[in-house]
């Protein structure tokens, strides 16, 4: 369906506004369903600092579907589980 057809069906004359509302509608669809899935990959780094386990989610993400880690023994990505609570810091590990 073209933008023009959508505008005529909705009896709307402003093209820019129609395009903005169509984008809003697609955003809503992507938020409620999994119509189109996208994926992104990042390098995992060996932690040497206290914030080295922090990775930024994709800036264009609407809803998260799953997170997986590459199993280097067979080069396959495997889903990992989500922690519902952030782990509590117990002690400084002075003698690893």
């Amino acid at each position: 369906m073209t933008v023009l057809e959508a505008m005529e069906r909705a009896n709307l004359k402003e093209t820019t506004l129609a395009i903005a509302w169509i984008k809003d509608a697609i955003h809503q669809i992507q938020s409620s369903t999994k119509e189109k899935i996208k994926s992104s990959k990042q390098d995992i780094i060996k932690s040497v600092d206290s914030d080295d386990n922090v990775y930024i989610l994709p800036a264009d993400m609407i809803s998260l579907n799953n997170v997986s880690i590459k199993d280097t023994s067979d080069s396959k990505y495997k889903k990992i589980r989500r922690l519902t609570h952030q782990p509590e810091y117990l002690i400084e590990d002075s003698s690893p």
Partner: protein
Amino acid sequence: MSVNVSREWYYFLRGREILLYKLLGGSSTERVTQSGVFSTRSHELMYPNEDIEDGLRVEYTALNEPFVTEALESTTSKTSGITIAFVDGGVSSDTITDTASGFNFTDGDKIRVQGSTSNDGDYTLSGTANTGTLTVATGTFTAETAGERITITQIPKEVASPDETSHINLNKMLSLAVVDYVKAMKADRNGELDKKEYYMKEFYSKLGDNESNIRKISMSFPSSPFAVR
């Protein structure tokens, strides 16, 4: 080496960030000094203790290519076979050849290659396309002889600056849902809240219909002896 990742790795969501943790014990016995020891559900966790290239994969929904050049229903061209080869043209354009002459694409189409050894990906055709040869930009392909079963599928081509002639990158049912959404927004602008509610209900109804169209499940229930038949 990361093994048993599905059992030994965990993530925690903190706003726009994802925090990775690894189970201490199991296949990992070393501790990362800087991370200290963390505890959750009687398990000890630590920060990732190895470098893994492209190790974290996130699957998500996004506002991905909302407008395309042609209707989704018309992007149906597809070719599959073991007679497809990739030619590195050097300084000239690279090509895909099919000795069975099975291509049915046109110039400017966007295609997705699957099944090749080293040329899987999305490409845009440039130059004249015919049944035996597809042309793409120079330096795109690694030379590959025929033999593998390769599938080439036409995919929608994005419009970066949409106008009235652009197509919504959704199927017919979801496009109709989008029309309902636009009607709802228009009613909202006019202060007609009852109409807005009505069209939003229609919008979500069509989303539900679209979902059930791809998840056909038949359920049967035993009828009770007192059921009206």
